[in-house]
């Protein structure tokens, strides 16, 4: 079975007792249930069923400070508490494994290498909201992750961690591995629910919020893979332990996917608040700039987040510090580019993605991303005209905040930041009908 050659910091995690998500990801046996259990796996799930009430469980997760790791950063415990206690309907938990924001490849590592930790987290989350059928929605392209999760699920059933009357507690829990069909938008929670229902993956108007009316119009919680994988550790080691990691407001650890022009692209678990500069230059992480070509910019949280200039990267990787720099932590996908990169070319790649992935439901996003792509392609091809930049800004302004889901915002935020931070280069492109620097990255 495929095993990604991705670099991780599992060696550091094995020695640092506070790092928990990546502790065993370099051991291929961690996928097997016996190994997982011998290392304390499913202990938290048993503890929850044996002795913890739903209210106490939600309270523990609230106290831990765990926030959604998919990008939005919403407090996980608070989200769980929105499910109505008195609803006579079925409740559902969906683990969002539709990882597809350019730059992001962290959830894949957990699915591929520690799948039982996700199942355990999903099970605990399910119990917290009174769910008896939980889903994991995996993007269809991740064939190897799908196989790993299905195998892990079968093992969990066979050993009695899922199914009827789990551990004799009287609690029943079933699981479905649902696979997507190739659509970034299905990582947006309401589009994800439509997709499970067999519909086109288009987002829904809110309210009603999924916690009230989600999957099959029943109360539903959607959580990211990484958020759920952290949950068993919080149960085993306590909310106070988890809350002691990270910064005052951004608690815990976070996985970062580092890509682009660094010597050691990889996936790294660090406490929130870790310095971005160290992430790029430290030999334990990014190992510095590829070929020593100086840094030009960083996209710190996935393709949808505003960029940072080289003089802005001495910043803590946490929700608040990046916000202060007018950017976002997002999914933790750090994309690094060097001085040989044309900024218009970067944006061309990004807008192509968002135009392609717009679900077509809201006019500003459907039409606007198309117009933006046309204008940006024109500038990149050396056919930019006076007034193009103002026109791009105008279109961006008419998309931002005017769509049902955040895809529209995601498409325009990097463009707005690139126009703000690299204005001269855009102007040069228009005036001289060519790149200031030509992005010509060799493949050899």
């Amino acid at each position, binding site marked *: 079975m495929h095993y990604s050659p991705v670099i991780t910091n599992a060696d550091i995690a094995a020695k640092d007792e506070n790092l928990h998500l990546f502790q065993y990801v370099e051991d291929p046996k961690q996928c097997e249930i016996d190994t997982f259990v011998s290392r304390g796996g499913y202990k938290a799930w048993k503890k929850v069923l044996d002795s913890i009430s739903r209210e106490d469980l939600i309270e523990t997760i609230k106290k831990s400070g765990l926030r959604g790791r998919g990008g939005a950063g919403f407090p996980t415990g608070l989200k769980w508490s929105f499910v109505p206690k008195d609803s006579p309907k079925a409740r559902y938990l969906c683990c969002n494994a539709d990882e597809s924001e350019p730059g992001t490849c962290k959830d894949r590592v957990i699915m591929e290498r520690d799948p039982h930790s996700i199942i355990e987290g999903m099970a605990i989350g399910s119990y917290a909201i009174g769910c008896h059928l939980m889903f994991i929605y995996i993007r269809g392209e991740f064939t190897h992750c799908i196989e790993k999760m299905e195998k892990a699920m079968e093992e969990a059933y066979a050993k009695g961690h899922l199914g009827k009357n789990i551990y004799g507690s009287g609690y029943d829990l079933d699981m479905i591995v649902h696979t997507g069909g190739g659509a970034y938008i299905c990582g947006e929670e309401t589009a994800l629910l439509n997709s499970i229902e067999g519909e086109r993956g288009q987002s829904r108007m809110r309210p009603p919020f999924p916690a009230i009316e989600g999957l099959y119009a029943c109360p539903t919680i959607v959580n990211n893979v990484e958020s759920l994988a952290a949950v068993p550790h919080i149960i085993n080691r306590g909310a106070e332990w988890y809350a002691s990691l990270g910064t005052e407001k951004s608690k815990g650890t976070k996985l970062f996917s*580092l890509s682009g022009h660094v010597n050691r692209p990889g996936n790294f678990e660090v406490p929130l608040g870790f310095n971005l500069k160290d992430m790029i230059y430290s030999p334990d992480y990014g190992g510095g700039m590829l070929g020593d070509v100086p840094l030009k910019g960083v996209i710190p949280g996935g393709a949808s987040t505003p960029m940072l200039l080289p003089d802005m990267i001495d910043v803590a990787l946490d929700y608040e510090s990046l916000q202060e720099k007018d950017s976002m932590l997002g999914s933790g996908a750090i994309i690094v580019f060097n001085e040989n990169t044309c900024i218009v070319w970067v944006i061309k790649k990004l807008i192509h993605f968002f135009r392609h992935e717009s679900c077509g439901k809201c006019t500003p996003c459907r039409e606007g991303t198309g117009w933006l792509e046309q204008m940006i392609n024109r500038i990149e091809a050396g056919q930019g005209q006076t007034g193009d930049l103002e026109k791009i800004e105008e279109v961006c302004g008419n998309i931002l905040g005017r769509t049902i889901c955040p895809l529209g915002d995601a498409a325009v935020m990097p463009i707005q930041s690139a126009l703000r931070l690299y204005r001269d280069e855009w102007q040069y492109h228009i005036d001289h009908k060519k790149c200031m620097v030509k992005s010509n990255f060799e493949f050899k």
Partner: protein
Amino acid sequence: MILTERSITKIKEKAVRYPRKKSAILPALTVAYRQVGHVDEEIYKEISKIIDVPMVEIAEAATFYTMFPKKPRGKYLLQVCNNISCALRGSDSMIQHLENKLDIKLGETTADNKFSLIAVECLGSCSTAPMVQVNLDYHENLDAQKLDTLIDDLKAKKD
């Protein structure tokens, strides 16, 4: 019937687990695509009978997603991620390399129907870029030598 007994059984096994019939649409399309290599109206019709959902609802869903193409493609579908992280690592040049090696343009299929070459959006292989997905399999951290070996091996494979 185009779908084999094995595919039909697989679809039924998956379908029965969902609380509602329509939820089996994507799993059924996935099984069909993996067997056939494309999913067209004939197959929608068959799926419709198997999972007892109107054909129009299957078509409606199928046409939204990129993984259920209606037309057949080459035996080996080369899907090159050409989004930002891969592009920074040379995916544009990698596409040119493949175009030259296979003597086709992006979006085309070789005359012997063996290879189709397309560019796709982010496949979540950003820290192991550049990459190509061949049918279902990922090939990551590619350089020219690795890629040439991969293609030559596929070329040498007997049908």
